[in-house]
Every structure is written in structure tokens, then in C-alpha cells.
């Protein structure tokens, strides 16, 4: 039943929305100037540092290289975007 519903709603999805989603995903890869290994290495070191101070959900950690508009709004600049869910503050730090 769920599958049937999915099939029906999927058919109704505009092809331009499919195009936009696919483009967004492919551009994340195109825009990153370094290799996945490099990103993984950086990620694990960032985690090590943060772990000293915070209890984080390591499996949900999301670090991506993307593009954003600079503060003066004049240029497109690369940006490292990290989403790090915190489970708890480590006690004794404050």
C-alpha cells in the first residue's frame, strides 16, 4: 500500500524538481576541490578536538564543502559547513 502511494506521488513530482535536486547533489561533488579521503581525515581530527569539550553524536556528524556568498555580497566563496549534533556538554568545563 505504501509502495503504491509512493509510486503515485512520485509520478506527480515535477521533472524540474528532479532536475534541481540532482543538480544540487552533483554540484556538491563538483565544487569540492579536495578528495573524499582528505575530507575524512579532516573530519576525524575535528571530531577529536571537539570530543575534548563536548559529547557529540559522531554518526550524525555532517561536514561538507560548499559555496556561499561572501559577507560583502560581492563574491561566491567556498565554505566549510559542519552540522555537529551535541549529546551533552562535558562536565567540569564550565
Amino acid at each position, binding site marked *: 500500500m505504501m509502495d503504491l502511494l509512493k509510486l503515485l506521488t512520485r509520478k506527480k513530482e*515535477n*521533472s*524540474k*524538481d528532479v*532536475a*534541481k535536486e*540532482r*543538480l*544540487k547533489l*552533483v*554540484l556538491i561533488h*563538483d*565544487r569540492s576541490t579536495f578528495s573524499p579521503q582528505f575530507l575524512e581525515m579532516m573530519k576525524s581530527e575535528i571530531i577529536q578536538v571537539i570530543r575534548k569539550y563536548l559529547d557529540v553524536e559522531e554518526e550524525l556528524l555532517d561536514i561538507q564543502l560548499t*559555496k*556561499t*556568498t561572501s559577507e560583502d555580497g*560581492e*563574491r*561566491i566563496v567556498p565554505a566549510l559547513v559542519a552540522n555537529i549534533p551535541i549529546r551533552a556538554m562535558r562536565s567540569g568545563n564550565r
Partner: protein
Amino acid sequence: MGEVIVITSGKGGVGKTTTTANLGVGLALQGKKTVLIDTDIGLRNLDVVMGLENRIVYDLVDVVEGSCRVKQALIKDKRYDGLHLLPAAQTRDKNAVTPEQMEKLCDELKEEFDYVIIDCPAGIEQGFKNAIAGASRAFVVTTPEVSAVRDADRIIGLLEANDIRNPRLIVNRLRPDMVRRGDMMTIDDIIDILAIELIGVIPDDENIIVSTNRGEPAVADAKSAAGLAYRNITRRILGEDVPFVDLTAQENILTKMKKLFGFKPA
């Protein structure tokens, strides 16, 4: 001192040459001294789109190699006052010109012309590097398709890396009917993805093919929808604040009636 603008896209066949020709004629019609440079060495086409293919004597390679003076190679378009074309060489390859030579040539031309418009070849290799070398501004042409938008994104990154700030976007061949039924990305979708400022939207228009057949750019055709879009871009280049018309707006009965009775839409 003139301005050097490169028309680029990454992907081939999205309308760089057509755009270069139309903006060139558009600027000339506005009284600006303009020179168009075709940098697609080996695959030149700006000459046929402009209808000037029979008047080529010297080309870009002759100029940078010093076989002739710049003035000798410039073809004066007799139909539009102040418009000139520097054609590409057809029998050489892209390595016949270096970025340093292009920079020097552009510096020389902008002393005399108000606008130097450079038609860039497809790709990101030597031809692209040559085309952008002397430019201070860039217009990125794309169509509302995944392949063209993806390549445009790559080009925008390369322009930034080469210190060409604030490239502007031209979305070509928009099909309002397809956008309305959700089968073509909207202008907002494309801007959202590419994150650069828009300078023009060209609707898909049969007149472009007809005018290219004749070698007479559509910008001079008062009845062509694409021609109007190019005239608007020309005015924006000159600093005028021309509002963007929503080409995908649903037609209501009033505008349909007006069209029927031959009134031009406001």
C-alpha cells in the same frame, strides 16, 4: 577607456556566439563603438552568424603574430555604425594564441572602443584561458538544462579563480510553457543553484534561427521576442535599470484579447 566583456558557458551549443552577435549589434545600435572578437580558433562561427563571412582577410592569429596590424584585420560592419569584428583563424589551433597576447590585444582595443565583446569557445582548456585573459567582466550563458547549468557552475568557479568578479548570468532558450507545467527549471531555481546575479532571460524563439540563416542578428528585429530580450540586456550593460518581465506569467483574458487585436503587451 572601454570595457572588455567575455561571453562564456562551459557547455557548447547554449548560445554564446548568438549572444555575442546580438549584444554587439545591440550596443552599436545604442551608439557605442564596439568590437567583437571570435576566440574559437579552428571552429569560427561568429562571422557567419554576423553575416560577415565573405569579408575576412586577416584574422586573430595574424594579428597576434604580427602578420598584419589590428586595424587591417577588423571587419567594419556597414549595417551598424561603429561595429567591428575580429574573426578567429580557421586553419590553426587554440595554441596559436597565448593569454598574454590576448591581454595585450584587449588593452589595445579598449583604448579605442567602448566595448570589446569576446566570444569564448566551449570547454575549459586553452581557448577558455585565452578568451578570459583580457576580460574584466564575464557573462555566463546557460540553458535551463542540468548539463548546461552544471557546466556554468564550473565556469563560474574558474572565473572567480581567475579574478573575474561578479559574473552575470544569461538564461537562454527558456520555454515558458514548459516552465508553467513544471517540466523546466525556473529562473529562480537556476539562480538558487548558481548563486550569481541575472542580467537577462532569452525566450526560446524561432526568429533566432531565421535571423541566423540570414546573418542578421535578431536584436535588430522589432518583432522578435528574443530580440527584445537582447535589447534589454544591452540597456542593462549601459547601466539602465530595466525590470525583468516574467515570461512565464499566465496569460489572462485581457492580455489575450489585447494580443488578438494587435496591442503590444505593456
